[in-house]
């Protein structure tokens, strides 16, 4: 690796940051909704 400040490379990698964070929040939000739904399911009464 040759140390060199490369603003173009920095800027071109920003979309990965956007996509990555969006992806994580998307997946996480679906999981949160799912867990909320599970927690609200009526519990089976023990006999």
């Amino acid at each position, binding site marked *: *690796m*040759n*140390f*060199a*400040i*490369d*603003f173009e*490379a*920095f800027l*071109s*990698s*920003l979309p*990965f*940051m956007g*996509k*990555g*964070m969006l*992806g*994580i*929040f*998307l*997946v*996480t*939000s*679906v*999981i*949160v909704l*799912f*867990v*909320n739904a*599970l*927690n609200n*399911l009526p*519990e089976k009464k023990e006999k």
Partner: protein
Amino acid sequence: MLDLLSNFATLEFKQVAMWIIGALLIYLAIKKEMEPSLLLPMGFGAILINLPNSGAQHIIDVMFRVGIDNEFGEIMPLVLFIGIGAMIDFTPLLTNPKLMLFGAAAQFGIFFTLCLARLVGFDLNDAASIGIIGAADGPTAIAVSMELDSKYIGAIMVAAYSYMALVPLVQPPIIKLCTTKKERLIRMDNTQGKQPSKMTKILFPIVVTIIVGLVAPDAVALIGFLMFGNLIRECGVLNSLSETAQKVLANLITIFLGITIAARMRADEFLTPDTLLIIGLGLFAFIFDTFAGVMLAKLMNLVSKKKINPMIGAAGISAFPMSARVVHKMGLEEDNQNFLLMHSIGVNVSGQIASVIAGGLILSFFR
């Protein structure tokens, strides 16, 4: 006699420097109890591999190829996930699922560090592998950097495990810098909410695997093994398997991984300016993870009636349970009746899931 001493003549200064680094890792493991299960084998491995004409080099190389760098994939880190999954109790997270959002936010450091690594000249795959130090999760870092064929895996591992061990030193100043005293004093409701049913605990690992698999198929090996381990734990009929996965399996692989990582700690590969740069970037990853977690909590406080202590956002990094403990301790330092552990543990385990998802996303972008 001269024959016996001939090996001395081949000793290089760089190798001695690696012994010192190895000794430092061993010291941190034993004296400071910082991730001893990994730092100790890594430290010893660093000495072993850097002896002149070391007969261990070949065998450690073979172990590395068998367990980590082989045509079938990164078997060992993935199998370790079964053990980790079996160790994690997701109950605090299932009780308060919105805590997962902090885990998601605290992965920001991964992606921002990727951009910083590009800024200083690393190529895309190496930059992504360096960014994954911010996952604060050793097996994820190993799996991702190996899959992306990074030549810096030794430095990445040393940085990842060292910073995980140094969480109690790295996080508090950042948390204090991002929060006001008033915010740090916020008390959170500690009454136990509705406990998740057994059905919820069993369905959780299965459904998380399906959701992640659908969105990020490259993450499914990582998350799938983690969740499989958790399913073994929660199903209630495989207690002996769960115990084996948590103890014997995890311990065996940890020993194996620790010593084989040393294969990438040869003096000529490790002692380069790049290593210093990677260690510096790793620190940025942890700083920005912490910053993003805290900031999300502050943001949520703007719209939420029930105030959240923003410090718990910092526990969203995966370093478990150190990060949760750090937040809890900081809460007590501000107010000795402010118990944040329940919330910070929930955020911390969510960070474990989120870091694996982030690793999978990185793979899907760059593989």
